[in-house]
């Protein structure tokens, strides 16, 4: 059962084909990873899958609905959420409020109710606060419930972004280098968290450089090189694929 199907997805910047006719599928409740050397087009692909870039060609089907060309907030509406490689935390808000922003679509409040702060809104806000706190506990931020976001360490902010993404109740969660900049202990924590997400039936897609993390948690791996799909398959098969080894280590590595 496929949640997401990308069909010959392309993105050109001027003459450069950053993503070149890439097709793949993401299965329900599985972890799919995108790997590839620097500049392979991984982050561009993620930006296409969240509407930040409009594709130059191809289709993005989420449960058979084509989302290509829609705005990022419409992708969010359709059930796609993401985190960022370079943190995009709302530093002008508390940690809890950051997560509450993710509930925006679910809360649905009209301008009049916002201006007058009706009792119904006050109740909804209390519920939203509780849900956000619950998500923070789920991602392991129970100690930071009252923290200002700017006072939090890097590793905690990475988790905060995951909590905010989860708050949108996504069907597909995209993680852009969730382990970048983390120490080995923190990385194991993130791996456990991603494993926990799948146990809860979430579908996760990640871009990651850390091979140990990728090979440890991925059900399916997609390898990009120069914007093209180089290989695809279960983690073990991809690891031994000669084309993949060549892309990472150079042609000479294959001889030995």
């Amino acid at each position, binding site marked *: 059962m496929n949640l997401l199907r990308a069909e010959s997805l392309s993105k050109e910047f001027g003459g450069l084909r950053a993503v070149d006719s890439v097709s793949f599928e993401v299965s329900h409740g599985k972890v799919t990873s995108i790997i590839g050397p620097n500049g392979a087009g991984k982050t561009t692909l993620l930006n296409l899958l969240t509407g930040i870039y409009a594709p130059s060609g191809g289709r993005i089907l989420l449960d058979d609905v084509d989302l290509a060309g829609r705005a990022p907030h419409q992708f969010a509406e359709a059930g796609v959420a993401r985190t960022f490689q370079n943190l995009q935390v709302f530093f002008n808000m508390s940690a809890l*409020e950051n997560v509450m922003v993710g509930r925006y679509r679910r809360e649905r409040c009209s301008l009049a109710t916002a201006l007058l702060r009706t009792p119904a809104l006050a109740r909804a*806000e209390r519920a939203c606060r509780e849900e956000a706190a619950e998500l923070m506990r789920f991602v392991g931020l129970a100690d930071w419930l009252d923290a200002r976001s700017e006072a939090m360490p890097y590793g905690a902010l990475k988790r905060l972004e995951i909590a905010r993404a989860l708050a949108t109740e996504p069907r597909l969660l995209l993680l852009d280098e969730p382990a970048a900049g983390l120490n080995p202990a923190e990385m194991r924590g993130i791996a456990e968290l991603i494993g926990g997400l799948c146990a809860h039936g979430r579908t996760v897609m990640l871009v990651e450089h850390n091979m140990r993390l990728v090979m440890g948690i991925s059900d399916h791996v997609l390898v990009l090189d120069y914007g093209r799909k180089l290989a695809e398959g279960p983690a073990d098969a991809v690891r031994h694929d000669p084309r993949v080894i060549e892309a990472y280590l150079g042609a000479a590595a294959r001889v030995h």
Partner: protein
Amino acid sequence: MISWLASPRRGGLLALLAVIAALPLALPNNYFYEVAILVGLNAIVCVGLNLLIGYAGQISLGHAGFFGLGAYGSAILSTRFNWPPLVSIAAATLGVAAIAYLIGRPILRLKGHYLAMATLGMGVIVSIVAATEDRWTGGPDGMPVTPLSILGATISGEGTWYWVVGALLLAAVWLSLNLVESPTGRALRALSASEVAAEVSGIDSARQKVLIFVISAVFAAVAGSLTAHYSSFITPSKLSFFHSIEFVTMVVFGGMASTYGAVVGAAVLTTLPQLLTVFRDYEMVVFGAVMVGTMIFMPKGLVPSLGELAARRDLR
């Protein structure tokens, strides 16, 4: 009880209510009432403008234009067409909302500070029209305006106007605080911190910006039309470009993203030139210096800086 009062929404509103209620005891004559009313009207504009600048991170250099459109709209409808003043105010405000929407909708889809340029242009056009269309506006000499009357009772005299403006300022602050604490307010703060993260969290940033731009224009229009009826005379000087800059300076000086900061900024920078008449000729220089000084020495503005100072002392 203490924590109920400590929330900025309740405690701050009560403090503001206390100040407004107690201030007449300290106002020796009509002239001071006049200054206080002016402070209140400017504060209403600044509370609205702060929603746009402080929370949504967008700059308007034409709020005096909205202020003036509200003033002239209401003045012309009530004086030339004999509409009841309250209806004129409502119609002028709706008209301003429509104009703000028409300006904001195409402009706010673009990234960057195009809104500042568009509003600057709008403000200049409005002030030229007000100065040249003398058949309607009386031209540079201005026009008289019928006094405000509610249900047949005419509102006149500084004493009465003081309470009307005071009540409206409280209402404006209350609405602003509510909005900021709502999902919409969080959406605005989010998109001013990281637009891309706000978007992928499901926030339609262009729509939110237009919404808040229209709301801030409405605040300015209401204050503008009240000013016209209060002073019973209006001239184009009220909608000059410099007046727009004054509003922005008040918000920046008082503290961006602080509703009470906007009120304090309006209070300080409206009162100063009135009390220090020596500065009359140097008003523009003084405002420029205040703006530059704020940027260098307390970029967060007066009220947030004082708040931080107090928090640090508490920790010690």
